[in-house]
């Protein structure tokens, strides 16, 4: 295992050259080091400890900071890019700070057919924010999540990963009131840095799909209504043969041969 030193933690997120900040983070690493080493020893291969160690850092900081990613890379001795790529796959790792309360109502099918949409609209209205956003005061983050395995108590949600069942607009108001007053039974999350509007880091379109880029669903229709779709339709109007031109095996072979011939001519 590589040696982790305070000097290695140049936090490019929370003040690059701030010595106090660096020292604070070094103390966190020292605090977590014994537990990290114990976790690593549990596995045949140190890299297996990546998720557990990321959880430890997130518990400590409330999010997985760039400095934490670097520390993890060093603790298990893999490149930083590997840690970033892996951490970004998992939605429970927050790569930007989030609110004190992570509110996650379920949008799964069993909750939807029992009226969850009404409660989600209520949340948005009461909090003044949308899906994947944090309130300006840094108190609430809001994300509509997939089935939470509590469908018998629909509509339901998790708050800081604790379950809250049988939601109604009234129970939501009562809960938010307690959270603001500081009397809620669910513990607040650790918050070491002020959150921003969202904690999600993604390409502009907000979608995984390349095909979905520049299609601003729902108001700018995708599919047949989008620009490329319209262009295609215009081409088909001019040349109906296009409809029949499916990528058949013969056509692929023909195109391939044409390309090869072209190549051959060049050389």
């Amino acid at each position, binding site marked *: 295992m590589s040696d982790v030193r305070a000097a290695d933690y140049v936090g490019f997120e929370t003040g690059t050259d701030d010595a106090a900040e660096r020292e604070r983070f070094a103390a966190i690493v020292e605090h977590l080091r014994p537990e990290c080493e114990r976790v690593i020893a*549990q596995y045949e291969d140190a890299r297996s400890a*990546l998720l557990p160690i990321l959880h430890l850092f997130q518990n400590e900081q409330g999010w997985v900071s760039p400095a934490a990613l670097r520390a993890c890379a060093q603790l298990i001795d893999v490149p930083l890019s590997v840690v970033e790529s892996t951490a970004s796959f998992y939605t429970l*790792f927050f790569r930007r700070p989030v609110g004190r309360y992570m509110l996650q109502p379920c949008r799964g*099918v069993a909750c939807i*057919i029992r009226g969850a949409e009404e409660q989600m609209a209520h949340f948005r209205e009461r909090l003044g924010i949308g899906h994947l956003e944090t309130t300006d005061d840094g108190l609430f983050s809001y994300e509509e999540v997939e089935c939470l395995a509590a469908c018998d108590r629909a509509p339901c949600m998790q708050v800081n990963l604790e379950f809250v069942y049988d939601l109604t607009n009234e129970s939501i108001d009562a809960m938010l009131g307690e959270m603001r007053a500081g009397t809620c039974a669910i513990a607040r999350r650790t918050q070491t840095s002020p959150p921003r509007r969202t904690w999600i880091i993604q390409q502009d379109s907000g979608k995984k799909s390349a095909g*979905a880029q520049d299609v601003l669903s*729902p108001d700018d229709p*995708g*599919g047949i209504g989008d620009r490329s779709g319209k262009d295609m339709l215009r081409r088909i109007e001019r040349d109906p043969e296009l409809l029949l031109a499916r990528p058949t095996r013969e056509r692929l072979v023909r195109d391939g041969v044409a390309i090869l011939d072209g190549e051959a001519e060049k050389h």
Partner: protein
Amino acid sequence: MQLEKILTAGIGELDLCDIAVYREQGGYAQFERAVKELQPAAIVDIAAKSGLRGRGGAGFPTGRKWQFLPNNGRPRYMVCNCDEAEPGTFKDRMLLEYTPHQIIEGILIGTYAIGSRHAYMYIRGEFKRGYETFMKALEQARAADYVGERLFGSDYSVELTVHRGAGAYICGEETALLNSLEGKRGEPRLKPPFPAIKGLYGEPTVVNNVETLGYLPHILRRGPEWFAGVGTPKSTGYKIVSMSGHVQKPGNYEIPLGLPMRTLVYDIAGGLPPGRKFMGIQPGGGSSACLFEEHLDLGYDYEALAGAGSMLGSGAAVVFDDTTDFVKAAHSLVRFFAHESCGQCTPCREGGNWLEMTLERMLHGRGVESDVDMLVDVSHSMTGINLCPLGDSIEPFLASVVKRFPEQFYAYVRTPQTAVAV
């Protein structure tokens, strides 16, 4: 209707998280007996004879899966899959939170049976409470010498490592789970090789669901004939069914396989709310096709449901009454699979997104008539050409409800002010 409780016995009545209480109920006696008296091969035989099939989704015979392990002298691993996230399923979470020792005993018996000395328990990241409960139980089991070195004076030693996920449904797929256990992105691997040949760290590995392993102590205690004698010839034993949606008594029910679905919906789950009409049931989780009134007399078992074009899957039954907007239900499920696609296969990644956007557009009143056909067409074209079954999971429900309730889908595109001029 009175049901015999096996895995669910004592839940809600006893504090089964306490090892003393669990032992009073006969807990850990079967693991002790296994190590002291039974050869691993004998347990594999018992599992095979009982007819026990995987309760995680695929329904593969457990004994057979264990028999695939090669005899190559390499280390082997047992992995317990508690990543439960299939829409509608909530049985593993209940077992985790209420009867963790039963899971531990099941894992230990399975690990011993396949000749492994290291087991892993993969728990869904969202199950924080369950994780803590399980960790406490494991500490108790360790202190009582059920986990560790040289158990019961034999030379058998076993280690159990708990691994917490971090929010990714796809990590329930066994090869994605193994990648996640190795500290990688949870992307499924190409099969073959199957985990039994090349699994965790490239070694022979068995992945079993929580409920599957949980039945092992009971099968050892009461004999494989007992288990094989319940249910139907091919779907033996009991199964926990998670009932949700429009029923009066949603919850987990442990039933003998083969019970008619009508009994399940009306007698066990209390039927529909007063005045409502039955419209459909999705019997086996988000990836299963919707079944209807005419299917209600079918048995709830692997063969009957598959015969009707659906599947038993994880045993999650969502019931739909006549207030259901099937476009919204389909949208929720499509969005789920689009969101959870790992992105490796183009049909799964692009198709899911496309369908989600199309449904979203329809719900916002901007659908066109051809959209309805397109839903069926795209979901069909993306099926059967992906690395893992997730990419094939959209079509069954979507196609079944479009076919059954086309008017609900056309209602979103037919009104004049919503037609989009192309």
